[in-house]
């Protein structure tokens, strides 16, 4: 019997100038027609190289050195290039990650989709165009006939990804390889695309290889899951079986280190210590042993994939481990492994007068008496649009429109929203890197905009920033020691010797060795650089750190290390954070309160637990629905509506409620009137005419009074008239 795709003992190498990377070692898998196989692993684990090996599209220096790849029983390894070309795009097709760069910018999408049809099916121009139209309709491109002659840059990211998928489907392939098809996307678009892939697979009966780093993505979409680590398969099983009863410690750790929406905020995330091995010189024996809490002498010989445990009926579950574990780690009492590796900073480790170890910021949403630290009121920021030849166009991007919130001492305020919603701009304004056009950012009641020059520079000690890109945020030619000394020097803190001591303290606090002082940034891994960035932000003992996507660029197992560190530092330093992220799970894990932004406006704000459990705004609900959850059952039982459509242009935002163009409950009034923020509980407010829950009884005087946060009423032209209780149906499926 032959499968649409069958791989046996595949070995792929990449020859670099100084070394040979063993990208894929001895990998076997097969996929049946109509089945989705999820291939998961962290970056550099060889999952993408597996996909490229199948296609015969390895990068320069790459080659398959052993094993076999069969499509419908036909061997592809060793096939001459012209033969292989006839298979590519015809029997096996691939969808790549980045839809921006994967389409040729100078060819129309109609041309690009028709191309494989002309190549493989010998169709004429008109015929191929006909087929292009058909598949573009199939992938849900709105009005495909009008779009055939569009160029890629005229489409949004989500639509471009649909075009890419259409291109792959044009010849009706038997096997579709989707390599991180949704990674760079916003969650709302991600869920649309994943849904589409699922649907197409069912309709066309393809075998789908879904390559991703996101456990949540495979949980909902894959029939079986293969886990890769350091170029090898370490575990494979049916999806539910894998999530319920994983046997490899790596799988277990990977899953436990993902913050989940229902994560109790007080718990520490599990984290896998260390970093993956270098595949140019892989360790002998089990490649995970160096990071494995169960490793012993036996792990020095390499384990092979073997059936594990009591073979459950039909559960084809194999694991490559000498000490298989049984199922997931208990969620609540997650122990932090390798406690020796965590230098607990004693009271002497901090420079500031030892503050009492804070009771932890997550002691429940009791009415906050903590002092207000930062108050943001009526913030507006617009960027003029420059157009090619004539300079100014008079248009502007409405990046931030009338946003207000407060951050209290020791608390974490989370800002979530899709890319382009203005959250990063707010972050920059909060640390005074950018000035608002209107509105104010006040630090302990003092408006930052009124400060200038020297006083502002001194005030900056209290406001620090942590960046997303761990590579761009450190000056490449400055040693780590000097990087950490810089803030102290600028603010004139301490003598040189005191500064030296402080630098070592900071490094110890963020879990880096003292020897790091003399190293350059390029010698550190991404996670380590984020630690350095955090140490630099801490150097001035700030009151507030704005963390802009602090873990987005990191791998899952590293992510949890940094998140845990951020929490620990908050507790020991009584820090406040503003955490900005598109990842609601990350924000939910860190934040006490959350603000949800849409297209420059704050649409909902409230305690983190309540926002998640009982959102009032349709956008918030859709956002939560869209997040892939690493739990197959939850993921499959999810209603599949998410958020429809695409983000409108911030240059011409919709009138009234900006979300109305994608809102399931939108009515005429939504286009006419801007919904004000109305209270939905203590500290909870949302701006919607037809909310998912009944708002609290109207107190027209000032909603501010009812809110713990003085959210100024959104009042263009002083519109205070309230809607009478609207007859919207509160969504019953969401029970707290």
């Amino acid at each position: 019997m032959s499968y649409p795709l069958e791989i046996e003992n595949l070995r792929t190498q990449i020859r670099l100038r100084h070394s040979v990377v063993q990208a894929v070692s001895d990998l076997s898998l097969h996929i049946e027609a109509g089945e989705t196989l999820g291939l998961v692993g962290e970056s550099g684990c060889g999952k993408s190289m597996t996909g490229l090996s199948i296609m015969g599209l390895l990068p320069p220096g790459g080659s398959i050195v052993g094993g076999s790849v069969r499509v419908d029983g036909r061997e592809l390894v060793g096939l001459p290039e012209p033969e292989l070309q006839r298979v590519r795009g015809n029997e096996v097709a691939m969808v790549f990650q980045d839809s921006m760069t994967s389409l040729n910018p100078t060819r129309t999408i109609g041309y690009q989709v028709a191309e494989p049809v002309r190549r493989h099916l010998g169709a004429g121009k008109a015929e191929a165009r006909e087929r292009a139209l058909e598949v573009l309709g199939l992938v849900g491109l709105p009005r495909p006939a009008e779009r055939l002659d569009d160029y890629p840059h005229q489409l949004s990211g989500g639509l471009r990804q649909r075009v890419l998928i259409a291109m792959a489907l044009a010849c009706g392939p038997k096997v579709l390889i989707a390599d991180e098809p949704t990674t760079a996307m916003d969650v709302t678009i991600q869920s649309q695309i994943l849904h589409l892939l699922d649907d197409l697979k069912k309709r066309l009966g393809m075998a789908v290889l879904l390559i991703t780093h996101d456990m949540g993505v495979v949980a909902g979409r894959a029939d079986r899951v293969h886990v890769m680590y350091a170029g090898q398969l370490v575990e494979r099983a049916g999806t539910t079986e894998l999530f319920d009863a994983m046997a490899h410690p790596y799988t277990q750790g990977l899953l436990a280190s993902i913050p989940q929406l229902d994560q109790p905020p007080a718990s520490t995330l599990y984290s896998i210590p260390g970093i993956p091995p270098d595949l140019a010189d892989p360790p002998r024996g089990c490649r995970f042993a160096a990071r494995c809490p169960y490793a012993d002498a036996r792990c020095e010989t390499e384990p092979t994939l073997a059936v594990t445990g009591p073979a459950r009926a039909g559960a084809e579950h194999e694991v490559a481990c000498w000490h298989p574990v049984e199922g997931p780690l208990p969620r609540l009492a997650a122990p932090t492994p390798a406690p020796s590796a965590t230098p607990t900073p004693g009271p002497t480790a901090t420079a500031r007068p030892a503050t009492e170890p804070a009771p932890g910021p997550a002691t429940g949403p009791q009415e906050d008496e903590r002092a207000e630290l930062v108050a943001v009121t009526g913030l507006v920021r617009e960027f003029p649009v420059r157009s090619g030849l004539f300079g100014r166009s008079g248009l502007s991007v409405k990046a931030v429109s009338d946003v207000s919130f407060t951050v209290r001492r020791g608390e974490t305020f989370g800002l979530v929203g899709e890319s382009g919603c203005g959250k990063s701009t707010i972050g920059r304004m909060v640390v005074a890197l950018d000035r608002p056009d209107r509105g104010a950012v006040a630090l302990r009641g003092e408006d930052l905009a009124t400060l200038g020059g020297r006083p502002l520079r001194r005030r900056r000690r209290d406001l620090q920033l942590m960046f997303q890109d761990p590579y761009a945020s450190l000056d490449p030619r400055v040693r780590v020691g000097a990087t950490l000394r810089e803030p102290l020097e600028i603010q004139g803190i301490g003598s040189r010797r005191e500064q030296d001591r402080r630098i070592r303290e900071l490094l110890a606090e963020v879990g880096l060795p003292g020897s790091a002082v003399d190293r350059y940034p390029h010698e550190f891994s991404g996670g380590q650089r984020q630690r350095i960035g955090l140490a630099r932000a801490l150097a001035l003992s700030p009151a507030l750190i704005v963390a802009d996507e602090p873990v987005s660029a990191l791998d899952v197992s590293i992510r949890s290390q940094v998140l845990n560190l951020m929490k620990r530092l908050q507790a020991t330093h009584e820090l406040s954070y503003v955490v900005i992220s598109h990842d609601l799970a990350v924000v939910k894990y860190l934040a006490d309160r959350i603000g949800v932004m849409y297209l420059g406006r704050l649409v909902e704000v409230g305690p983190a637990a309540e926002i998640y459990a009982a959102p009032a705004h349709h956008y918030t609900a859709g956002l939560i629905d869209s997040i892939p959850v690493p739990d197959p059952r939850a993921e499959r039982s999810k209603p599949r509506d998410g958020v429809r459509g695409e983000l409108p242009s911030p240059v011409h935002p919709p009138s009234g409620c900006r979300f109305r163009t994608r809102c399931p409950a939108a009515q005429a009034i939504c286009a006419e009137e801007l919904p004000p923020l109305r209270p939905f509980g203590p500290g909870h407010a949302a701006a919607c005419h037809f909310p998912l829950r009944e708002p609290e009884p109207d107190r027209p005087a000032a909603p501010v009074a009812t809110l713990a946060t003085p959210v100024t009423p959104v009042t263009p032209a002083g519109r205070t008239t309230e809607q009478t209780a609207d007859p919207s149906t509160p969504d019953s499926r969401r029970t707290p």
Partner: protein
Amino acid sequence: MSITAGVEPPGTPPTLTAAPEGGPVHVSIPIWRLALRSFVENRLAVAGVVILVFFVLFSFVGPLLYHTNQVDTDIANTFLPPQPGNPLGTESHGFDVLGRLMKGGQSSLEIAFLSAVIATVIGTLYGALAGLAGGLLDAAMMRLVDVLLAIPFLFIVLIIATRFNASVLSLSLLLGAFSWLVPARLVRGEVLSLRSRDFVSAARVMGAGRWRLISRHLIPNALGVVVVNITFQVADALLAVSALGFLGFGLNYPQVSWGDMLSNGISYLLSGYWWLIYPVGLCLVLVVMASNFIGDALRDAVDVRLRRR
């Protein structure tokens, strides 16, 4: 290469005493050494350096070892073919060609380096100012560069050269004064891109003033581009000097540059005095090529440093 110190078998000397939570740090390779490595791996670049060093020694140390009279003409011994005593023959004034090559090399290299430095200094300051100032000043400054770039450099220099008494210094000044446009653009672009980098924002958030940003972060990081530019400027200046020489605006006798020698030798093309043309032509081409090699490799090395992730 990457090892987690904590699980190393006991007995091997641990790289770190206690495994820090953030994981171990790899063996230190300073960034300049990475750049150096990428530079050395480029064989052309190494060849370029060897050639350049050779010609610098040839021109400046050579005359100390190989004495010739380059001042008094020797009418009796003009156009001698290569022979013992005159390995490369003599030229129209009876000067020994090998000795003259050294003398010409001195002034050619001096002019090339001096003008390259002048151009780079002016261009760097101008470009940095425009990039830092931004707004209207930037726009005005760059418009001026556009205007100057529209007229070929050679034309302007030629027009001015008609009025100049050409010496090493005046030619260097002249070439330098009109070839800073490209470095100005480059540096401005670099400053603009650096200004928006996260690490510069980080310094601003710490309260760093303008001068600190410029001196600590912008200048050192823009330096790579500047250094690369110098080497290309050297190549261009050598070519420009030789073109001026060919068109009759070279150094005044008894000073001489390779370009002057070449254009002088070319008048005897028909007479078959090849030793007046090919040796000097070869020197010129080799040095220009060497500078281009070095520039190319330096640019790659700088790129490696910036791109390295």
